[in-house]
């Protein structure tokens, strides 16, 4: 079957209802190959006709089929789909179809003509032309030919203004290329990710990508604190040789090494903690002053805002990608056409992938065949069981919260040697490690029909646990703030210890669960299989560690640096461990969907920690002896003072601020936002209904088409009976069996006709 032709979907509206080939019908001989070479506007013949022609079916029927409204609809969706992708108000003609073997001069000329004859052609920037070229699915050499032709035409037609535009476009293009070049060389951990993807597919890679993403969002946070808080403080200490007023009583402690673990001692008198920062105004040069207090608070606000923006945009993007664009129920379809991971390189992974796909399909088909219809008693049983397990979970959550509170209280009031500073972080980490195992056991009892639901329930419970423990802690810290000399530093230390203990436990778990288990599986207990990499648990751990970072950055400005180091080490440890110890999982992991969920968790935890820090800034009395806000009633006071200052200077500002902060204005804003949300929701519901209607209409179109085809068939049959003398009639084949005509699809119908004509009237084709 040779396909020397270019088929181009032309603008559908022009094509709609128009018989393009009306004039062409003179000759019965119609060869596909010369269609491409003639090509004066007749290229629009679509593929269905090709098929019909190649299979000897009658062209007339094929043409008719092609011009059926439902076929046009198909073309239309195609074009529309492309246009939305291009995000361009000007429509770029879309090219679909195999130019593949039509490598010749003719084809490329034709396509080049198509491009240049477009009325919008002159307005197009070079960029757009290149995008169009790149998007063509043809070979490189023909693309090059098309490009040459197009650009030669362009240059001839260009006026002065367009030439300038063209040059600017070119420079912009070059700029973009060089940026891409730089980005490519800067891309982090590229080869590692490739290796992991080669061995484990996209699922495990998604964990590492998430880690990398967290690493990247911590960099700006770190740079902000470094640039605006830490460096000024260092410079201040350097210039003012006698640092007074900000050191605590227990001065001169030397570095011993143990501080790295517990974060006390020497560290207390460094820039690591809140307490060390000065409340003074630093004179940079005469006339320029650096207010440390403002810098500290506003930098903090800045990085929370930055994180909020980054998180919100990525969660929106991910949500749109997965839930809005990806809506619809296409389970089987996705499993088949989206089944293979093209990045896999290892034989073992490929074998497991085959196996996993097979079992997944069989499982799904079994579920389809026997829809589970549980009896009422079974349903009741499960309902009560789930109530019971949820109560148990709640009880566990409450008791772990109380345990942490109890330990913190005991640690404070009694001086017990073994309850050292590590008691609390160890306890929390142990709870975070053990309780999820208990939850897992409970979920086994609950008997969820879908593994997906079980996974989500598990994740929600685990994350609630983490949230509860952190809330108890923060509450405790704030409640007892007045009893300590410098509670902010103390809080910073506590969070530092949590981060460190969490880090050590992550390493330990990797070692025990992955390395030791592999050794056991290999050499001791042969029954034990190699461990699988638990993407869910590991990602939740990352989210927890990031939450600690957000919670602590205000009290321990350099925490983001520590988290950066931690993430780097975890990346390499996990990378080595996963490649050395783990085997690819048989359970499929839907990376895009779970990514959205992880982002949602991360966002919730971000909000929680922001609220916690904001409460501390607004409501809790800062310590008297240390930190940038000593002697003030609340940290937030400096902002109100600043605004008051402004009011004196610029009276008009007063009106604005008063207006904005007036209850009426705030109420109006809230109402407006509410109305906006409601409106958008209504529009969304409307769209959903529209989609359902359109789908129904589409189904009806299909039925219409079948109906009409049957009528056509009948008419032809009657004609044939009446008029047996005209042998070159398209449907003049004697052997149609009636059953085949009533087949559900037009394609089958053509096939029947094709076979029939092949049998009977092949002579005239």
């Amino acid at each position, binding site marked *: 079957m040779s396909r020397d032709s270019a088929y181009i979907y032309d603008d559908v509206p022009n094509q709609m209802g128009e018989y393009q080939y009306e004039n062409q019908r003179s000759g019965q001989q119609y060869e596909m190959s010369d269609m491409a070479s003639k090509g004066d506007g007749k290229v629009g013949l679509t593929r269905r006709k090709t098929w019909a022609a190649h299979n000897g079916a009658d062209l007339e029927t094929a043409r008719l089929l092609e011009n059926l409204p439902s076929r046009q609809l198909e073309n239309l969706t195609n074009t529309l789909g492309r246009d939305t992708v291009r995000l361009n108000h000007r429509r770029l003609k879309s090219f679909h179809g195999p130019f593949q073997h039509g490598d010749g001069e003719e084809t490329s000329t034709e396509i080049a003509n198509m491009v240049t004859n477009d009325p919008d052609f002159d307005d197009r920037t070079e960029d757009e032309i290149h995008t169009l070229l790149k998007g063509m699915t043809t*070979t490189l050499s023909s693309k090059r030919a098309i490009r040459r032709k197009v650009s030669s035409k362009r240059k001839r037609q260009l006026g002065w203004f367009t030439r300038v535009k063209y040059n600017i476009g070119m420079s912009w293009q070059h700029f973009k290329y060089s940026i891409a*070049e730089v980005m490519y060389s800067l891309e982090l951990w590229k080869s590692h990710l490739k290796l992991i993807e080669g061995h484990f597919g996209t699922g495990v890679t998604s964990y590492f990508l998430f880690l990398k993403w967290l690493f990247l969002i911590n960099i700006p946070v770190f740079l902000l604190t470094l640039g605006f808080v830490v460096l000024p403080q260092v410079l201040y200490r350097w210039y003012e040789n006698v640092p007074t007023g900000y050191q605590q009583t227990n001065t001169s402690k030397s570095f011993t090494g143990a501080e790295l673990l517990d974060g006390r001692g020497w560290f207390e008198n460094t820039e690591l903690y809140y307490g060390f920062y000065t409340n003074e105004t630093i004179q940079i040069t005469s006339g320029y002053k650096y207010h440390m207090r403002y810098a500290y608070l506003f930098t903090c606000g800045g990085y929370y805002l930055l994180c909020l923006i980054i998180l919100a945009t990525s969660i929106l993007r991910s949500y749109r990608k997965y839930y809005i664009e990806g809506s619809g129920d296409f389970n089987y379809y*996705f499993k088949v056409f989206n089944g293979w991971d093209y990045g896999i390189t290892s034989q073992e992974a490929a074998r497991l992938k085959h196996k996993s796909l097979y079992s997944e399909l069989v499982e799904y088909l079994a579920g389809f065949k026997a829809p589970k219809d549980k009896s009422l008693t079974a349903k009741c049983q499960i309902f009560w069981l789930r109530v019971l397990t949820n109560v148990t979970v709640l009880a566990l959550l409450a008791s772990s919260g109380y345990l942490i509170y109890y330990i913190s209280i005991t640690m404070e009031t009694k001086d017990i040697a073994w309850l050292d500073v590590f008691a609390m972080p160890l306890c929390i980490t142990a709870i975070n490690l053990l309780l999820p195992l208990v939850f897992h056991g409970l979920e086994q009892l609950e008997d969820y029909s879908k593994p997906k639901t079980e996974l989500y329930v598990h994740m929600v419970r685990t994350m609630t646990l983490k949230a509860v423990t952190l809330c108890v802690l923060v509450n405790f810290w704030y409640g007892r703030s007045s009893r300590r000399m410098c509670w902010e530093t103390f809080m910073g230390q506590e969070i530092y210890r949590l981060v460190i203990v969490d880090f050590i436990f992550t390493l330990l778990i990797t070692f025990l669960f992955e390395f030791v288990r592999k050794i056991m599986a290999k050499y001791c207990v042969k029954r034990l299989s190699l461990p699988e990499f638990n993407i869910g648990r590991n990602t939740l751990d990352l989210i927890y560690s990031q939450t600690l970072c957000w919670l602590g950055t205000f009290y321990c400005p350099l925490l983001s640096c520590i988290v950066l180091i931690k993430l780097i080490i975890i990346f390499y440890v996990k990378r080595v461990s996963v490649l050395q110890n783990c085997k690819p999982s048989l359970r499929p992991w839907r990376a895009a969907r779970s990514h959205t969920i992880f982002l949602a968790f991360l966002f919730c935890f971000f909000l929680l920690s922001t609220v916690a820090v904001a409460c501390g800034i607004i409501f809790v009395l800062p310590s008297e002896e240390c930190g940038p806000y000593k002697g003030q009633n609340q940290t937030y006071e400096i902002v109100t003072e600043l605004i008051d200052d402004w009011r004196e200077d610029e009276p008009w500002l007063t009106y604005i601020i008063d207006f904005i902060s007036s209850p009426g204005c705030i109420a109006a804003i809230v109402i407006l936002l509410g109305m906006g949300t409601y409106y958008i929701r209504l529009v969304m519901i409307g769209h959903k209904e529209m989609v359902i209607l359109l789908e129904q209409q589409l189904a009806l179109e299909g039925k219409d088409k079948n109906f009409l085809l049957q009528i056509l068939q009948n008419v032809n049959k009657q004609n044939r009976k009446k008029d047996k003398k005209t042998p070159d009639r398209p449907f003049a084949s004697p052997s149609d069996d009636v059953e085949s005509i009533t087949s559900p699809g037009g394609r089958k119908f053509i096939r029947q006709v094709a076979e029939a004509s092949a049998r009977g009237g092949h002579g005239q084709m």
Partner: protein
Amino acid sequence: MGGSHSAFTEQELDDYQTLTYLTKKEILHVYKRFYTLDPEKVNLDKNVKLAMDDIQKLPELKVNPFKDRICKVFSSSGDGEMTFEDFLDMMSVFSDQAPKNVKVEYAFRIYDFDEDDMISGSDLKEVVDRLTGEQNLSEEDMQQLIDNIFMEADLDDDEFLSFAEFEHVISKAPDFINSFRIRL
């Protein structure tokens, strides 16, 4: 190595950059990968046409159940043999930067085994058979699966998936763009 820098003139690299989704560095990297497939032949002539077996030495293709289709689709001569430009084309389509619609187009061609620009039941069967590898679905299960897929995606009820139908559904698969990718 065969001196990958000297292999192309600046003009050629510029051209490749304009016509593919790759940057110059990536193009040189692609060349390196092409070179390792058969160093001797490529050394003699960088525009050499490598046989399908050679191309399939690429680790990603080696284990890919659709390797012969991929080679055929991207080969400019249509027989699975590939020149460097074809190879570059392939890597460009499989790269991160290639937009979804281009990837969908090539995915459609790969899965269209009989090359009639429609994915029929037999194409689907072939896809599933290759995906499951050594294990095979029973006849009944296979029929059920194919029916289900048509039920989900065959909008005009003709027992074929046209490109538009294929694209309509696959563009809703959020994982598609990640799984239809070969990292450089």
